[in-house]
């Protein structure tokens, strides 16, 4: 199973409560550039919400030091002690959910913690679960194929 932040942009009013709550929680400041969720204005009162879907796992496959892994709840996390800050993960992220802040040593992303869900006044956000898919399994299957044994770990 994969735990993730389910977003319903049609309910978003662009109040930025989620962004503030997230950056306060993780960066100890109210700075949209440091939030793990992004609210992008599309005009005419419409908004796009950007956060990791926890499923595509391209960053897991790309990371050259295996600092990015999947925890028991199916959430993609970065181990800052292993990360070398190369930003390859930022480049391969198809949605822009993997972010970095200039001159800070490591990138960051949503870990489906739910802080933003509590802050959202309109119910646009919720923590949900979904099934594993071919994409989510790919990096682990690729490694297993080469190693010829099942010790890659981390999968729920």
């Amino acid at each position, binding site marked *: 199973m994969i735990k993730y932040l389910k977003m319903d942009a049609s309910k978003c009013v662009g109040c930025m409560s989620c962004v503030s709550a997230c950056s306060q929680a993780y960066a100890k400041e109210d700075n949209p550039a440091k939030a793990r969720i992004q609210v992008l204005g599309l005009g005419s009162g419409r908004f796009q919400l950007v956060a990791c879907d926890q499923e595509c796992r391209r960053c897991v*496959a*790309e990371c*050259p*030091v*295996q600092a990015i892994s999947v925890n028991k709840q199916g959430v993609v996390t970065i181990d800052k002690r*292993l990360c*070398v*800050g*190369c*930003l*390859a993960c*930022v*480049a*391969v992220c198809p949605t822009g959910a993997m972010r*970095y802040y*200039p*001159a800070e*040593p*490591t990138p960051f992303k949503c870990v489906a913690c739910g802080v933003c869900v509590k802050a959202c006044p309109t119910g646009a956000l919720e923590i949900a679960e979904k099934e594993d898919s071919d994409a989510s399994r790919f*990096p682990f299957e*690729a*490694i297993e*194929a*080469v*190693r*010829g044994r099942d010790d890659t770990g981390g999968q729920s």
Partner: protein
Amino acid sequence: MSRAFDMKDFRLLSETRFEKKPIHRGYAMRTMHLDVGARTMREKPVSEEMKARFTGGKGFGLRLLWDGTKPETRWDDPENEIVVAMGPVCGNTNYPGSGKSLVVSLSPMTGVPIDSNVGGYFGPYLKFGGWDALELQGKADVETIVFIDNVEGFVRFYESPAGLQEDTHLLADELTRAFAGSGASDDPTELQAISVISAGRGADHSPMGVLNFSLYDRRRDGIRVKQAGRGGIGTVLRNKKIRAVVVRYKGVGQNSNDAADPAAVQRLGLKLHREIVQNDDKQCKMRRQGTAHLMEVMNDYDLLPTKNHKYGQDPRGPELASWVWEKLFSQHLPDGCWFGCTMACAHAVDGFELQTGPYKGQKVCVDGPEYETAAGVGSNLYVYEPEGILELNFYCDTYGIDTISFGTMTGFLMECWELGVLTPERTDGIDLSWGNWKGAAQILHDLADGKRFGVLAGKGVKFLSEYFASEYGADARLMKDIALHGKGLEQSEYISKESLAQQGGYYLTNKGPQHDEAWLIFMDMVNNKLPTFEAKAEALHYFPMFRTWFGLQGLCKLPWNDVEPADNAKWPESNKVPEHVHNYIALYKAITGNDLDWDGLIRQSERVYNFQRAFNVRQGHGRREEDYPPYRAMGPVLEDEYLAREERYDKQMLEKIGVDPAGKSVAERIRITREYRQKQYDSLIDAVFKRRGWTPQGTPTPEHLKEIGMDLPEVLEVVRKRL
């Protein structure tokens, strides 16, 4: 793999402790000198003057080698050195291709300095302990392992323990596990913190020994190796009785170089990461195929070495095409040789079952093949079975033999077999018919064991061509014509016959014919962008200088033009990939804080390139007559070779030479073509030497050295003796 040794059980011979030193703006401003005979370590400061004149990497390596050796030093003298040097940009994790180190030494093949660039983790790990370069000098009296612990801050010399494996795929693995965590840790982070330089058994018996630089691959829980392949530096390592040099470092981060502007380094790196991710599938497919993507292109253009560079094409060429390799490469995940290289071209074939030699029947991981290997031990030997190429690739690596020299050398032997110069009596029964990769493998096994025909073969084509003429009565001129080497170094794997500029790219080089300095075939032959001698000379100035710069910085040249901005072609001088050149200038400035422009970049290289030429002169070489190719690299040697491309050569004779080929015998047409092409090459040398600021004899002039800022008294003294 399981652990067989623990470093704590090794016999310690000596230890020197040092203060770790943080890097500041790309430099440590000190180097490490190890005397393996005396088992001592000393620190040497790097002066501001050395930094300004030699920049780093290859520049530092050559400076240290010059100072450590004498004009009469030979490769196997104790004072010969192996210098591993990194460069200011080396080790950054943002810009793809930033993990290279440069290794220099007096080459056992050429007698002059060789420089060879290599990936793997060793260079950056060495640097981040606070070292711009490592000098290895002296000769040990016992088999020695050097351990540089950049975590704890000490250098130790150990006696190599009995029972330690000698073949690289086992040796590097055993040492990584023995030294992990400074004592046999199983923690993957500790294993990844180790990198090993080793040579192989092949280097004990042949001048073409490589240095293998290891990296621990967490996903495979195994060792991968990258090679400082050219010029026989592995042979120097073994001659010094060094079994391995092990380095340990932990804590590589985004700004380990202490860049002047770390945000700019991130921005530049991310820009190229994105360009690679978006464009690579449409361009070179390096992420999926590595350099093997070139195979069918080269075959299509008559450039893929076939039968000792006799031809450039064969109907069987497509059997070795990129898509064949893509299917064989396993683990479809990025395989880079340094952190943050999204080009990730270091592919491997896992679970490959060997058919010959001491590991017959075992399943192994084969690093590669890269283009040069697939061409050199493939089409060049008329081997079109991928499994034959993989087998030769694996054994070259594990025995520590350069696949390029081995491929070119074996191609020469197979042609000698075809010509009747070699017979079963002379090869100890090895059948060297074209395509018989098992015969080639037998040479390799014998070479590693130091016995039979393998020992003779491993001496390289320069020696063999002279030996076959004097001992076997072979036609001396023919032997010279088809022995593809310059200065004693075997040529790498492109057909240069139809590109005069590429002949210069190969042979108007300081270290011998390699593909590191200039690759002008497409510009010259396919796109006809270098129509005059002056245009060729300009390219043979600009590209070797530009490409030298990668080696000053610790950079790989592949991300320069194996991926391009989508709109590259619309810019003037698109073959220079101007946007990427500007990236490099900005990257250098962001890390070092020093100013630089495009001319300044070329000037940094010119200083080092001319210093290297003067170094050749100091060692009694660096003369014009050493810069000529064997005729096989310039045109058709044999009648069947001419006839296979008769239409092309006849047309050239009529249109370019102005001689009507009608009614002339093949021998006569070969002679006329040869005279013309050799004259062309002579004119090329004149133009290139002039453009480079050298005398017609190939000596840098004092005026030119002054102009570029390389007028050091010791350099002027050397060149003045030649004027």
